[in-house]
């Protein structure tokens, strides 16, 4: 154990903010066995602080406590790490004031996505600051300078959470829980094994009054993932289902019981849903608070308020779109509604435009937009993550991201009537819009297969990006996005969120390293579109403005190129004129975008942003590239390959890069 810690220590360099992914990962697995013996030794801690001095000191102290430490100086990188290695950390220590992302935002994301205990730290020890921390849900608030004695006790928060989680499960049927866990765990690569390990360690400490649960856990010995876990793991899939259910019911009318029924997930209990709903509501409240801060009108405004969507799409984009008259008010409204979880009814009316990607409806939950945009289930997943990921690092992006966040919820649900105009909210929408430069793929309702979709993706830069952008300016960086499925991805799809952000008009989506600008059309697409339509994401861009007419943003037509440099680190190239200005994208994309970006996955449309960990993409190995590229200079030591393996659950953000020139070519049939 000590040796491992030393290894970890040596791996972590104090000077740069590097995260010791390897160490963390290895220790994850290696320490499993030891945890139970020497708990709390071996507790896996992630420390996030922009102050290198403190980071170094904390690392040293935590190692002294025999914990396994991973340090990170950037919140976004940390978030990516968390998503990528779900279940590899037990507790997170985060600073409050960080330049790239507010510590509280990180707290929120972690709470919603991973439900790990987060301890805040700050030099600001004023009561008001501490109060704020507690209110945001921090498990604890440490005042700098942090002493070793305080760190010795942080394990109690991990245990406490598990205990409480356990209690929650006690009410639910134990057998069901096992199944539920199994399902939930499928998506989370590390979750089960890690949870098992930690559960095992915590067993002696927990009072398991419900012995039935224990028995069940033991029965399922063969499959570690099904062993009893004290709490429900809200995977992206599950969350997507949850969101769809909520959307169907309407956020105001959503009650746990009905949500549970709609979700129809075996093993999930009403209590699980209730607590998740509570978190979700808090989350929405916070986002709407954020969007309103910017002076954006309440997203719930009725149709015709183009600005409203700002929150969703990014103020910049929406306004731009609206300004350019390309976004029909209805679509905006619809988008809003979608995002906000309005009852589907509203949406139906509102949505008749947007050219959304039309994905083949393979997934039962695909939502078909009027124009053939289908909302693929996987997309939903992505959306989930996407919503989480929109911690915004950049101002312009912020809006967008928050917007996206909301989307997933809404869009997912449109499972109802086929042509409901559900937008696949995910980021994809925006991207799709982007893709549809000239848009129009006016192919109304084609819910057909990929090939049909192809032409429909028109990225319309004007839609989203800056008002001044002409559609032609849609260029995403250099690398074309080629979306190819499984093996055919020529480049990893990288959805450059920069598009969304208004950075420089069109921030370049390019995160990709590839700069080859050719949008491969059809061929790629077909390969690309997995059973579920990929497009939805793309089309979901509400901004489809022009597309509206045509809808079908054919996802397929989008070729996404995933870049290696993903996350945020879009290397991009030129930031300026490029619609998808890279540079800042670095920042922009950083946030989570990458995660959601390319959810090229079976059945998922190119999601704009998918959490790294959750991305299941059939994408080939063309490898979406590193999620955290070092090019951009992030100081994170990344694992070199975050590839989208076919089965990879790694969420590799995919950045769509739309070649500058003509997107139309891409979409030409």
């Amino acid at each position, binding site marked *: 154990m000590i040796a491992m810690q030393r290894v970890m220590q*040596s791996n972590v360099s104090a000077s740069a903010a590097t995260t010791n992914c390897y160490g963390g990962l290895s220790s994850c697995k290696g320490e499993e066995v030891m945890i139970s013996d020497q708990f709390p030794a071996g507790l896996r801690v992630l420390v996030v602080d922009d*102050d290198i*001095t*403190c980071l170094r*000191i904390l690392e*040293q102290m935590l190692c*002294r406590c025999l914990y396994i430490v991973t340090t990170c100086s950037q919140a976004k990188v940390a978030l990516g790490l968390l998503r990528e290695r779900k279940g590899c950390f037990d507790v997170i220590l985060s600073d409050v004031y960080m330049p790239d992302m507010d510590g509280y935002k990180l707290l929120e994301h972690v709470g919603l996505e991973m439900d790990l205990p987060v301890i805040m730290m700050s*030099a600001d020890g004023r009561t008001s600051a501490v109060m704020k921390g507690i209110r945001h849900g921090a498990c604890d608030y440490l005042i700098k300078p*942090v*002493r070793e004695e305080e760190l010795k006790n942080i394990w109690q928060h991990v245990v406490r959470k598990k205990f409480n989680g356990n209690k929650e499960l006690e009410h639910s049927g134990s057998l069901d829980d096992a199944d539920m866990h199994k399902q939930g765990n499928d998506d989370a690569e590390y979750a089960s094994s890690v949870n098992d390990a930690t559960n095992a360690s915590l067993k002696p400490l927990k009072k398991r009054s419900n012995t039935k649960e224990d028995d069940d856990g033991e029965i399922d010995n063969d499959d570690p993932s099904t062993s009893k876990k004290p709490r429900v793991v809200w995977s992206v899939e599950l969350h997507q289902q949850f969101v769809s259910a909520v959307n169907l019911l309407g956020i105001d009318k959503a009650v746990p019981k009905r949500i549970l029924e709609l979700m129809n997930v075996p093993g999930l209990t009403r209590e699980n849903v209730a607590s998740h709903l509570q978190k979700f509501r808090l989350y929405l409240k916070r986002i709407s608070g954020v969007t309103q801060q910017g002076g954006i009108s309440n997203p719930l405004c009725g149709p015709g308020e183009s600005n409203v969507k700002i929150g969703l799409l990014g103020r910049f984009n929406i306004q731009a779109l609206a300004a350019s008259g390309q976004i029909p008010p209805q679509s905006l409204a619809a988008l809003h509604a979608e995002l906000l979880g309005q009852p589907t009814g509203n949406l139906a009316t509102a949505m008749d435009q947007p050219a959304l990607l039309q994905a083949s409806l393979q997934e039962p939950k695909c939502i078909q937009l009027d124009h053939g945009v289908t909302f693929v289930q996987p997309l939903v997943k992505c959306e989930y993550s996407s919503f989480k990921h929109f911690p915004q690092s950049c101002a312009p992006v912020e809006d967008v991201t928050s917007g996206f966040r909301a989307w997933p919820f809404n869009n997912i649900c449109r499972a109802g009537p086929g042509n409901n105009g559900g937008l696949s909210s995910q980021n994809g929408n925006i991207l799709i819009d982007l893709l549809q430069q000239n848009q129009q793929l006016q192919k109304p309702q084609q819910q057909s297969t990929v090939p049909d979709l192809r032409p429909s993706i028109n990225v319309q830069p004007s839609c989203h990006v800056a008002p001044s952008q002409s559609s032609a300016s849609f260029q995403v960086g250099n690398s074309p996005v080629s979306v190819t499925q499984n093996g055919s991805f020529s480049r990893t799809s990288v959805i450059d969120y920069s598009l969304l952000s208004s950075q420089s008009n069109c921030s370049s989506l390019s995160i990709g390293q590839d700069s080859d600008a050719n949008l491969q059309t059809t061929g790629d697409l077909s390969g690309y579109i997995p059973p579920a339509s990929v497009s939805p994401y793309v089309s979901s861009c509400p901004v489809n403005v022009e597309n509206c007419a045509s809808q079908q943003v054919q996802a397929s037509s989008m070729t996404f190129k995933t870049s290696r440099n993903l996350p945020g680190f879009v290397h991009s190239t030129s930031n300026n004129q490029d619609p998808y200005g890279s540079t800042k994208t670095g920042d922009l994309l950083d946030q989570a975008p990458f995660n959601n970006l390319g959810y090229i996955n079976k059945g998922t449309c190119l999601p704009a942003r998918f959490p790294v960990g959750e991305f299941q993409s059939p994408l080939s190995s063309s490898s979406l590239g590193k999620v955290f590229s070092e090019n951009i200079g992030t100081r994170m030591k990344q694992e070199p390959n975050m590839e989208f393996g076919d089965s990879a659950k790694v969420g590799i953000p995919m950045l769509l890069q739309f070649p500058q020139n003509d997107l139309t070519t891409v979409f030409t049939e």
Partner: protein
Amino acid sequence: MNFAKNRTVSTVPAAKTGLPVWMMGLVADRLRADANRLLAFLFNQGILDEQFLQLQQLRDESSPNFVSEVVNIHFHESEKLLRNLRSLLMDREFSGYNKMGIHLNQFMGSSSSIGAKRIRNACFAFRAASEQNSRAGCLRALELLEHDYCFLKNKLHELFQIQQQRVLAAGARYPMQN
């Protein structure tokens, strides 16, 4: 501080310093005394607090230079922060106290983590001045900060030099050991 504990003059061959071996012990002792005196001074004057001691305790075989490493990181970062603070404050178009607050907060956290008590207190004064929106007050506080920072930096460098000499002296004195 585990070197030079043995005060007896060793009979090992002459130290590389050229001094007679019997004198090495004196040198080592003197250095140790100097170091202690300096530390005592810093503690008494309220420049350092017990957090610094914690840092010293964190030193171990794998990181023998932990304290100097961390302190150097701190100095490096602090200089940037102080420069930023100054430029923000001197900026003709003063943009507001928010940005300063962020830098200040980081400086405060960093300083307190290494045990720089006086600097941390000076930061509180700065924060108070900025809360009162007093630019002049902030300037004065910044000057005090800079002064305290320079003073601390000098003293700590001195301390590290003494440590280094002690190591050398110990090594020289007991060439076989180490």
